[in-house]
């Protein structure tokens, strides 16, 4: 028998699942989440979260279970995440647009037996249930999936509402999968403590309050989403959900940001660049925005200066931190960057320790570039079921007195100026960012190599016309094979999420070779990106 010290009406949240009921108790009539014409107040959100948690417990979900969430951006995004957490389980985002093969891998790897969804995803849920051996219960479909227990949202609304199932703050809260270099996605494990520390810290840095409306750009599988999901409710702010079609149509998106009077925006530079170049921003009043936050990529300075001219009341914040550690540094600017100087990633957040080390593991001399190491309360617990990756990612250092310090190796190369402000220099490996998504070039090359008619493939990055980076690929075909671009793209789409499918495929006779006859990837990539520039 496990028991926990009680007390539900705490003033200070200990768990992510405390955020919604506490906001409801304080400001229950204020809006919590808006999605186009729909809105839930904190009282209404709390009620829907409570009944979903009740339905999940009735479906057999127990503390520590991993529950999948597979939804388009909608009110159910917020209800689903907080409902799963309230049931004592950890949520695992299943990207609504990822190939079934990838979702199947995640459900098996993470042991996901229950998935929360909605009717818009019915077809892919049916496909997932046919493929997956582990999924046994679907919550959120109006009609049952053959061979799988199903609970509809209508039945959910009639379930017994429950208070948060008490777990420990060091227990698992969510697992986010990201690309690995071999093509096998890896699950980043965050606890209630690491998620909550990030939420409270960013709410404090940006002074969030119940008058704020946070523009919700990021899909759930993208770690930036935790800002709107958790930092928002911790401050009683309202999350304004931008649905996928709006995100693809910059002019529609700009109109919505203006109409909703959003006060905080947080997304990747490539999304802002689309708003800048294609959003018709001068047509809209965007003076309600007080924080314009970006992260995940370097922002081209001239474009950032242009963007700032459309947001007259906004302070810009460059937010830095790999998904493994959440946000660990920030740098604010109120004046547009001058010339071609990129915005620094800035200084450490409170409760964060940073160190810049050389290849020998020693701290570099002042001003030199090195790999950024991080130690913080916002750090992940590790990678799901991957002790090999944990061993590579964490550096455990014995500090004086025998105390063990755990440092995370970011793989990011940075340098510090005299005052300790950090600037991003590059990567230690071949990881690149495409529209904010982490992509390892080897992963795509390996997926291309799995296409039967492709003998060798090389993938590179070029600066696209929209101002953000695009993936390009060249292939050498097996003898006698046709170069059918559409067919290769479709086969790739079965293996990779959409953002990782190169936007341009070209045919090569052969690639540069090393002395031993292997493809010289470095030379081939240079040749490819030079040709397509």
């Amino acid at each position, binding site marked *: 028998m496990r028991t926990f010290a009680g007390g539900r009406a705490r003033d200070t949240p200990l768990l992510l699942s405390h955020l919604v009921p506490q906001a409801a108790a304080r400001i229950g009539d204020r809006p919590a989440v808006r999605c186009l014409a729909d809105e839930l107040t904190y009282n209404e959100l709390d009620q829907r979260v409570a009944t979903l948690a009740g339905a999940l417990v009735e479906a057999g979900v127990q503390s520590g279970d991993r529950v999948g969430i597979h939804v388009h951006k909608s009110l159910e995004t917020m209800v689903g995440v907080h409902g799963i957490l309230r049931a004592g389980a950890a949520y695992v985002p299943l990207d609504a647009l990822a190939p079934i093969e990838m979702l199947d891998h995640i459900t098996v790897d993470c042991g996901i037996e229950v998935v929360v969804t909605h009717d818009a995803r019915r077809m892919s849920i049916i496909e997932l249930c046919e493929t997956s051996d582990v999924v046994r219960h679907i919550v959120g479909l109006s009609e049952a999936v053959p061979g799988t227990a199903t609970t509809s949202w209508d039945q959910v609304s009639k379930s017994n509402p429950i208070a948060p199932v008490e777990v420990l703050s060091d227990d698992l809260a969510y697992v986010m999968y990201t690309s690995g270099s071999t093509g096998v996605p890896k699950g980043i494990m965050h606890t209630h403590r690491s998620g909550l520390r990030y939420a409270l810290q960013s709410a404090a840095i940006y002074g969030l309050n119940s008058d704020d409306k946070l523009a919700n750009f990021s899909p759930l599988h993208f770690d930036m989403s935790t800002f709107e999901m958790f930092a928002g409710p911790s401050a009683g702010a309202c999350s304004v959900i931008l649905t996928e079609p709006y995100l693809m149509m910059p002019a529609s998106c700009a109109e919505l940001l203006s109409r909703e009077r959003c006060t905080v925006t947080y997304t990747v530079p490539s999304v802002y660049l689309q708003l800048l170049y294609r959003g*018709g921003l001068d047509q809209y009043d965007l003076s309600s925005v007080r924080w314009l936050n970006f992260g995940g990529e370097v922002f081209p300075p001239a474009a950032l200066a242009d963007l700032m001219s459309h947001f007259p009341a906004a302070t810009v914040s460059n937010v830095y931190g790999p998904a493994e550690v959440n946000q660990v540094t920030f740098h604010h600017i109120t004046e547009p960057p001058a010339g071609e100087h990129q915005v620094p990633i800035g200084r450490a957040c409170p409760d964060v320790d940073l160190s810049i080390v050389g290849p020998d593991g020693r701290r570099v001399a002042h001003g030199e570039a090195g790999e950024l190491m991080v130690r913080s309360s916002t750090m992940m617990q590790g990678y799901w079921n991957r002790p090999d990756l944990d061993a590579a990612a964490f550096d455990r250092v014995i500090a004086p007195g025998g105390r063990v310090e755990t440092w995370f190796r970011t793989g990011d190369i940075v340098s510090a100026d005299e005052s300790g402000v950090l600037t991003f220099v590059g990567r230690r490996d071949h990881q690149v960012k495409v529209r904010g998504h982490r992509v390892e070039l080897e992963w795509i090359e390996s997926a291309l190599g799995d296409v039967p008619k492709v003998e060798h493939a090389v993938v590179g990055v070029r600066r696209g*016309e929209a101002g953000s980076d695009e993936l390009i690929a060249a292939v050498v075909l097996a003898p006698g094979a046709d170069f059918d671009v559409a067919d290769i793209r479709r086969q790739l789409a079965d293996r990779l999420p959409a953002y990782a499918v190169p936007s341009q495929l070209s045919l090569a006779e052969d690639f540069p070779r090393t002395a031993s006859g292997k493809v010289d990837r470095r030379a081939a990539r240079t040749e490819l990106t030079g040709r397509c520039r």
Partner: protein
Amino acid sequence: MSDITSERLLAFVNSEISTSPERVELESDLLLSGAVDSLGVIRITQWIEDELSIEVSPLDVTLENFQTVALMLAYIDSVSA
């Protein structure tokens, strides 16, 4: 709208843009199906500009004009008139 433009646009979307296993038809919802992502939308507008010599105002790239190939064709018709 000529049938030729319709066929060419559908062929372009299916071969160069869509990553969906199902063939994109005139009325397919491109945005929610995952057949087209934000970069795909940009490439479609570039195709319309280059191949049809039509200047597409960024303000016209909206849900009303681009959610399906049929809506794109109606838009092309309205601006080439």
